[in-house]
């Protein structure tokens, strides 16, 4: 009855991931992290750290499932970016899996982005993240994105420490409907309820979440 085993590419990727995971039994497979990373590195960095000022997100430690889906969606047009669409289209399915696994295997950066908000903006960002706002019928971001926006596997990417400009541009593309690869249209629904000030506040808030334990 385990009917779908092997029939969905993303699941095949998970099988590979299971072998690559540090806790799995030794498989003898070459760790994905040793593969070359040429096409992504120029913008996303050798360690997946992104370029905050250029709206380029951190992707290190983002789940492979999420990264693979984004590459697929850039290629199929449900997410738009002139740069990423071309890159994604040029990649084979195997290559998309490879790069998704590569960046997923890198440590998620613990350091926050530079502070960009004043106290009022920060309070608003915190409110949207932790509680939501009944007035505009928006639920808490953390409901899906996890405590402090650290992400929830199989559900939502991390936002903590992400580039504020990138989060803002993602929200804008959800608002405008040029990005439509969100589960259940939930991000489009939420983003449309936010005004420009909200977008700045919540983006800046997550950018400066500090997960380092020091």
């Amino acid at each position, binding site marked *: 009855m385990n009917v779908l085993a092997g029939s969905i590419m993303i699941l095949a990727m998970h099988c590979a991931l299971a072998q690559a995971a*540090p806790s799995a039994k030794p498989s003898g497979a070459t760790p994905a992290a040793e593969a070359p990373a040429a096409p992504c590195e120029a913008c996303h960095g050798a360690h997946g750290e992104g370029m905050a000022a250029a709206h380029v997100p951190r992707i290190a430690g983002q789940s492979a499932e999420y990264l693979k889906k984004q590459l697929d969606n850039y290629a199929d047009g449900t997410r738009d970016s002139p740069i990423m669409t071309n890159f994604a289209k040029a990649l084979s399915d195997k290559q998309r899996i490879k790069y998704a696994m590569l960046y997923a295997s890198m*440590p998620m950066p613990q350091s926050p982005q530079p502070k960009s908000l004043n106290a009022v903006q920060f309070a608003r960002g915190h409110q949207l993240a932790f509680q939501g706002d009944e007035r505009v019928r928006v639920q808490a971001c953390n409901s899906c994105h996890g405590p402090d926006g650290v992400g929830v596997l*199989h*559900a939502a990417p991390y936002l903590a420490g992400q580039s504020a400009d990138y989060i803002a541009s993602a929200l804008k593309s959800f608002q405008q409907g040029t990005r439509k690869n969100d589960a259940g249209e939930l991000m489009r629904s939420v983003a449309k309820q936010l005004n420009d000030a909200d977008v700045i506040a919540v983006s800046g808030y997550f950018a400066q979440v500090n997960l380092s334990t020091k």
Partner: protein
Amino acid sequence: MAKVTRRSFVTTVGAASVVPTAALLTATAPGAPADAATAAKTAMDAASGKPVYLFFNADEVLFIEAACERLIPADELGPGALGAAVPNYLDKQLGGAWGAGERLYRSGPWQPGTPSQGYQLPFTPGELFHTCLRAISRDLAASKTPFHEMPADNQDAYLKSLESGAHDLDGVPSGIFFDMLLKMSVEGFFSDPVYGGNRDMVAWRMIGFPGAYADYFDAIDHHGVKFVREPMSLAEDGKGHIHTRQDIPANL
């Protein structure tokens, strides 16, 4: 209760071999630090320390710990009630609002009623436990071996006699006490770790329940595929620390 980092669970899970080989949707270990194993071990040792009991007295603790571990024993599948800190959960619940009769209608007159009419004793849960544990202590005083030192079979036999209602525990039919002990033990095993049981979410991990953070819009399409993700508590922060709080009110 000591805090445990979520990252440590990556290592812990693998070591406990509870990830079935059929797992397809599988947890990744994003950025697990190199010293995760060490960090995890330290945290687990700290977390495994004996709870500080506030409701049960020392004698009661001996009985409760032993009895709970028989109700939900450790085995090859994973920890039992002790490993999951179930007695700690009982201690905090019985010593708090729930033990004092929260959500219990407490006006008389008091009559035994029929089984279908449910609990009809004047005792709060806290009063019921102290009353029954005192009676059990007297009952067992005659036997040479204290309950917690009995062989498991003898412990089970005594618990079964409580369950069957064979004992009069200072007026309380022992079946009523046993039912409450068992029900609360299952609660302590499976509830969110915020309440002080289900330590390190061991019970959730054993059955594969992913916990409080729950959004399966995409995952639900993967029919028949095992879903694997580290469980998440409602009380964990972004650094993976689970903060316990046992006095969450039973209202909104």
